[in-house]
């Protein structure tokens, strides 16, 4: 038996591997976060970074139920919203200094958000987690609309159109942070992003986390190893709600306002897209998705009005051609590079990339020319000093040639790969 004992330990990854694969990435991530303020970033940078932090936690929490739990929800923003609202109210209680709240630091409001989100998850999850699959998806849609519409009726909690706002510069100061200027809020966001990330990562390593994956893969079988899949789903759902609420609490402190729109289908759809584009089969996928999409949302929207169109194209392309998302692509490339024939792999990859790039150029020119044409303000798309109006033959030439060449090249590259 002693023999077996030795071997079974070898089955699990070694302590070194564990450190390399699990602890190290998180340490690096945290170190990056800590290093950022040293380079003296701009206001804009902070604004986006905060949004990213919030979205990372939100998207990860969504993936607890979609990726790890196999439940497609169209209403995850409800829990984000509940968490945010509860935190918002708590912020106001802190300001009023009423009772216990007088001594509660604003810094810890995300915990209140967690409680709010988890509570909402516990209430709403009770009826909805009895089902899975499409039924669950439809219930989540119905609940989302229901809560959103009801939010305009209960003004004392949701604040109607105007929402609830507050002031984060109250209560006990922690770590010498007044929480006023944006650069101080940064530490708050960074801290809770890491907490959320570590918390959700740890969750995947617990029995419940594993059971959640088992229930996703095969709910029927879970019954026959002694677990009630409904209960597994329910518990996971509460946690996902809690972490969404945590993100909501972060948002409450960051924006100091919550409106019912935070619970509408739009943010619910956005978090779905973030998680899916990032890659729902990987823990880190949603992080990629959150970073990319937040960036697109805030920066791309400055460059082009049609950024949502690009987002739609990106999403559909991912659904059709890369269902494992960005993370899948990244890890796929990584594997390819370490595969048997990296040289050939790189060649194929470059060819594909070139093809995609060409298609992208065609698409961008098409969209940008059209946008300006449709706006009718007589503006003209002028990349790299070119003058691409809608009456310019060159514009249409670029569009057609690049698109055709791109498609052809990509096809050729994939054929090549298959043959190999």
């Amino acid at each position, binding site marked *: 038996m002693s023999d077996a004992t030795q071997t079974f330990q070898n089955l699990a990854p070694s302590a070194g591997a564990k450190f390399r694969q699990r602890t190290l990435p998180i340490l690096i991530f945290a170190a990056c976060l800590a290093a950022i303020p040293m380079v003296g970033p701009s206001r804009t940078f902070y604004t986006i970074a905060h949004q990213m932090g919030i979205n990372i936690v939100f998207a990860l929490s969504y993936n607890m139920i979609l990726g790890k739990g196999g439940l497609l929800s169209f209403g995850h923003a409800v829990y984000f919203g509940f968490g945010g609202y509860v935190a918002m109210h708590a912020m106001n209680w802190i300001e009023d200094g009423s009772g216990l709240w007088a001594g509660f630091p604003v810094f810890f409001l995300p915990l209140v958000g967690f409680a709010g989100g988890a509570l909402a998850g516990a209430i709403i999850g009770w009826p909805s987690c009895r089902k899975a699959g499409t039924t669950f998806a439809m219930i989540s849609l119905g609940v989302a609309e229901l809560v959103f519409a009801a939010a305009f009726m209960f003004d004392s909690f949701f604040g109607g159109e*105007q929402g609830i706002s507050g002031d984060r510069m109250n209560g006990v100061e922690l770590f010498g942070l007044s929480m006023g200027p944006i650069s101080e809020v940064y530490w708050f966001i960074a801290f809770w992003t890491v907490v959320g990330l570590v918390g959700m990562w740890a969750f995947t390593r617990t029995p419940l986390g594993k059971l959640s994956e088992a229930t996703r893969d095969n709910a029927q079988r879970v019954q026959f190893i002694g677990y009630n899949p409904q209960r597994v789903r329910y518990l996971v759902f509460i946690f996902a709600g809690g972490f969404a609420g945590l993100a909501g609490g972060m948002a409450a402190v960051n924006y100091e306002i919550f409106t019912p*729109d935070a619970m509408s289908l739009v943010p619910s759809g956005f978090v779905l897209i973030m998680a899916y584009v990032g890659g729902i089969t990987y823990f880190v996928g949603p992080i990629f998705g959150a970073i990319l999409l937040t960036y697109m949302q805030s920066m791309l929207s400055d460059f082009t009005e049609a950024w949502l169109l690009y987002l739609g194209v990106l999403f559909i392309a991912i659904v059709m051609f890369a269902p494992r998302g960005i993370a899948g692509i990244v890890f796929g490339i990584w594997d390819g590079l370490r595969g048997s024939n990296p040289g050939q792999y790189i060649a194929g990859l470059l060819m594909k990339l070139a093809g995609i790039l060409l298609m992208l150029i065609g698409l961008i020119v098409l969209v940008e020319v059209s946008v300006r044409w449709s706006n009718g303000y007589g503006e003209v798309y002028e990349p790299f000093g070119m003058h691409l109006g809608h009456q310019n033959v060159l514009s249409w030439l670029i569009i057609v040639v690049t698109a055709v060449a791109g498609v052809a090249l990509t096809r050729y590259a994939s054929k090549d790969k298959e043959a190999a």
Partner: protein
Amino acid sequence: DTIKMAFIDPLSGPFGPSGEAAYTSFQLAAEHINANGGVNGDMIEVTGYDNKVNPKESLVQLQKAIDDGARYILQGNGSSVAAALIEAVNKHNARNPGEEILFFNYAAVTPAFTNELCSFWHFRFDAHADMKMAGITDWIAERDDIKSVYLIGQDYVFGQAVAAAAESQLAEKRPDIEIVGNELHPLGKVKDFTPYIQKIISSGADAVITGNWGADMQLLMKAAAESGSDVPYLTFYGGSKGAVSSLGEAGIGLLYQVSEVTTNLEASDEQYALIEEYKERFPDYDYYYHRAWNAMDMFVAAAEAAGSADPIPVAKALEGLTIEHAYGSATMRAEDHQIQQPLYISVVSDDVKYGVDNIDLGWKLVDAGTISMESAEQPTTCEMERPE
């Protein structure tokens, strides 16, 4: 350098046209100012930020605007947004001394903003709801044939303020009038007002008072036309895009509006030229937001008086400033930063110089429809904190 102004308002969705109409007005005003040499030699740049009439989104856009270097915020579409902006601007200015920003509110008319919620950083360039409602109720007070009134409005601060003002002012001026309906509907979500119109018809009301604007105004009129309703509509924003054309001929003599000007008031040729230039540039819209010119002109006057385009000196110079504009004079009351100016009640008519919505109907001043600056003035409870 350039003076950056951020226009934070809806540029898409059901209230997009309201935002666009104002955005184009501010841009044209800025162009003219720049063409005349700018402000102390500096050029003005007005950039649009779409907020979808959502307060939270507005704060995101505000942040962006500040990051982009804007020191002046222009907003008007929606008091819910304005409330959030006032608060955010107050906080920003408290937390970032030296980087102050000013908020020029050109249309969000909830009275509280220049009363209990007043702020040094906020200036309002439109008459607030109590002022406008006073105009309407004075007019009703004279009309003995109106015995019952139906109130319909949007369910948010502004709509609530309108309803409250109507109730209290009518109770005072015409206690005999019965309020047969007081309905608030969701903001920008109703697509078919037919059931509401039918409720109005069955209530037998003699007049309807509404503060609706944007699509909510237009669709209300569309449903009224379809249901053949013939009650008069006393509105703040009958001038919203599409409202007049939705009613068509049926609107003549029925659709009223109280506003700071209409294009059919007497004016100089210069002003007529401006109206025509606007129409030429933006054929989808009509010259409606005269207050955009007022706001910009007052800004220029203040900045020139202060000799600086920095927010604090400009704000101080704005207090008590009076300008002459195309239709008379306007004064920024120092106490509460509420503009004071005459108001006009007009009604849809086919006998006008300028039609709206690209049809021949337009707004014509009603008899005794001019409300002087003095009678439009309302007291304020504002206690303002001013920086050193």
